[in-house]
């Protein structure tokens, strides 16, 4: 842990002085970070919320800092679509009449794509700035002029208090690795879901491979993702997530591995789950 933080701080410490960083590291690691965070009664990690709020300016630039999320839509939108509708009759608005909750919607990259398929989307995010950005951007695309997503600046646990058994689907794409108290997070998501509704989660796995590729290479070497976006300790393995889901009355239907090809810039499903994975589960009752 210590050495890992240290190496990170050295890599990150191009601007800050090394000593400052070291002090920060030691204070952080002197407290049992993961444990205290998991015990909190809020899912919000303020430092992550702040970090992503800073990306606001270029959030919607397709080849900006959020480029990976934009291209990821090409994989996760069909994933959600095929998880919800399974007919041979192809419709122009396959997700019509489906109520979808996009948890941690950020600037609305996924919310808008789902709205384009006819779904009535509600996006929630802990960042006020990003919700403001999303609310502004939903007026840009004429294709969703009649079906704009609703955005609310709140946490999932607060939102779940007001709506129970409401949504046909809850999507938490690349969010669970940024929250504190993952059990509460999943529980709240499921609370908002109708019985028979589906929950879709995509997140990095917690392996040495994901530490190397998702954090070290993508953040520090190739700058695919903003620096400091991920903390290894907060990653969750498919087994842990499946366990949480099944403990909360869900049945896990699918677990896919996800790979990214940086040359063709394309995402793809695979059987290799060590880097990143997607889970689809159905709420039983």
């Amino acid at each position: 842990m210590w050495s890992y933080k240290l190496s990170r701080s050295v890599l990150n410490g191009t601007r800050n002085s090394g000593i400052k960083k070291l002090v920060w590291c030691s204070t952080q690691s002197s407290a049992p970070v993961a444990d205290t965070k998991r015990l909190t009664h809020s899912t919000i990690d303020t430092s992550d919320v702040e970090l992503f709020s800073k990306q606001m300016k270029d959030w919607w630039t397709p080849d900006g800092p959020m480029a990976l999320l934009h291209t990821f839509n090409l994989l996760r939108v069909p994933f959600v679509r095929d998880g919800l509708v399974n007919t041979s009759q192809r419709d122009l608005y396959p997700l019509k009449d489906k109520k979808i909750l996009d948890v941690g919607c950020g600037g609305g990259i996924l919310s808008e794509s789902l709205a384009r398929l006819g779904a009535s989307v509600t996006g929630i995010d802990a960042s006020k700035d990003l919700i403001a950005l999303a609310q502004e951007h939903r007026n840009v695309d004429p294709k969703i002029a009649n079906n704009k997503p609703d955005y609310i600046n709140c946490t999932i646990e607060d939102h779940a208090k007001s709506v129970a058994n409401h949504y046909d689907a809850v999507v938490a794409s690349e969010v669970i690795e940024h929250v504190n108290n993952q059990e509460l997070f999943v529980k709240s998501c499921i609370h908002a879901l109708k019985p028979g509704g589906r929950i879709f989660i995509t997140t990095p796995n917690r392996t040495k491979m994901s530490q190397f590729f998702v954090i070290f290479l993508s953040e520090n070497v190739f700058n695919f993702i903003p620096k400091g976006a991920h903390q290894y300790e907060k990653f969750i393995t498919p087994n842990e997530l499946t366990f949480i889901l099944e403990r909360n009355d869900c049945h896990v239907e699918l677990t896919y591995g996800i790979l990214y090809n940086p040359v063709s810039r394309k995402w793809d499903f695979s059987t290799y789950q060590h880097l990143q994975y997607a889970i689809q589960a159905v709420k039983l009752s």
Partner: protein
Amino acid sequence: MLVNNVKSLLNRQLRCCIQTTSVRLLCTAEGGYTSQVKDTFRGNYDVIIAGGGMVGCTLACAMAKNSLLSNLKVLLLEASPKSDYQLKSEYSNRVVALNQNTKALMTSLNIWKHVEDMRLQPVRYMQVWDASSDVMISFSSADMMDDDVAYIVENDLMLHAINKELLSTDNENTHIVYNAKIDSYQLPKEKYSSPQSIVKMANGDTYTCQLLIGADGANSAVRKAMGVQYLTWSYEQMGVVATLNLAEECTNTTAWQRWLPTGPIALLPLDSKRSSLVWSTWQDNAKQLLQLPEDQFVDALNDALWKQYPRSSSVETCTSWLSSCLKQVGMADGAARQLPPSVSGVAAGSRAAFPLAFGHSTRYIAPGVALIGDAAHRVHPLAGQGVNLGFGDVKDLTELLAEAVYSGLDITHPNWMEKYESVRQRHNVPTQFMIEMLHRLYTVDFMPVVLARSLGLQIANALQPIKKLIMSQAAT
């Protein structure tokens, strides 16, 4: 502010001037007006298809019939007038050979029914042989689960069948403009944020669209506007076409092709008494052939089909040795050669020639623009593949576009367009390459080359897996 004031003042002044002159010199002023006529905006479309040939019309038809694409506003721009096609007893001299893949596409679009209602000739057997060594390869429908090898359909009949279906598809989102003379294209630069192309017509009409499809043939103006690299060369050859009367009536379901040192000559069956000719030969020879009196042309034709060309004895020895070897192990030795029909006459006025060239566009797409058919690729007619490749483009493009729309993507999203380009180039380029190699291999009369190609052809004819490979590549 000040500048604007001055501008509006000047404008008003100018208008006054024009008005006064128009009152004084009515006729000349009117003339002046029409020549300086302002571009009239005629509408914004989702898709504009430039070129209403076989491939362009099929695309319009496929889009109108696809449940995911039928609500796209499509405009088809066709340069020629709306034709009144009447089926005549005489065959047209331009024909296409359609493969099974094209048949499947046309059946799915309900076009094949119209073709069958008019006329087509199935090819059940195909024989290709080398004039320099008499080695041959044959493809028969027995090799491919008793399915026809190809279908011979006249170009104008095919176009009519497609148009008939397109017009009967009651889709108010499909618009067709005939006599469309396109003046210029203005293509978008940026990749994202909904690009828009502007199409300016010679008569001042302008249209805008999100997705522009270049289906405007080998001299594609859309491709030129895209500014992509286009690899092309002329074969210095022309394809002489004609409708031939056969000396004897027969079932005539065989396509014949003989490789002469000048290029391939092919007889494609039309009905029991007639065949269509495609004779690829050097330009000066082609021009001579066009000018020959009818009887001499028929003689030249029969010569080309029957004449014994000088053989190299070593090639002869090697091929006969190989064929006896093949016979010993029980494989097809290529001795069971069928004899081509002899030609008795040419339908009056059916002789014509068209230039042959190779063309390959290195990119099929640009932001908001895609090329299909001959605009993207052009091949020698020796394998009868040109239009089939174009129909393959149509099939893949509609499938990928529908998939993109089903995923909620824009119709100009680079993701599906890049997929379209790579899928098609992966099929088209190897096919083009093979055809090019065949052409080069067979226009040489150098002994070692003749020997190599003769032995190769014999082996290919004897080995069923190789034959199946060739046929499957040609059928998709």
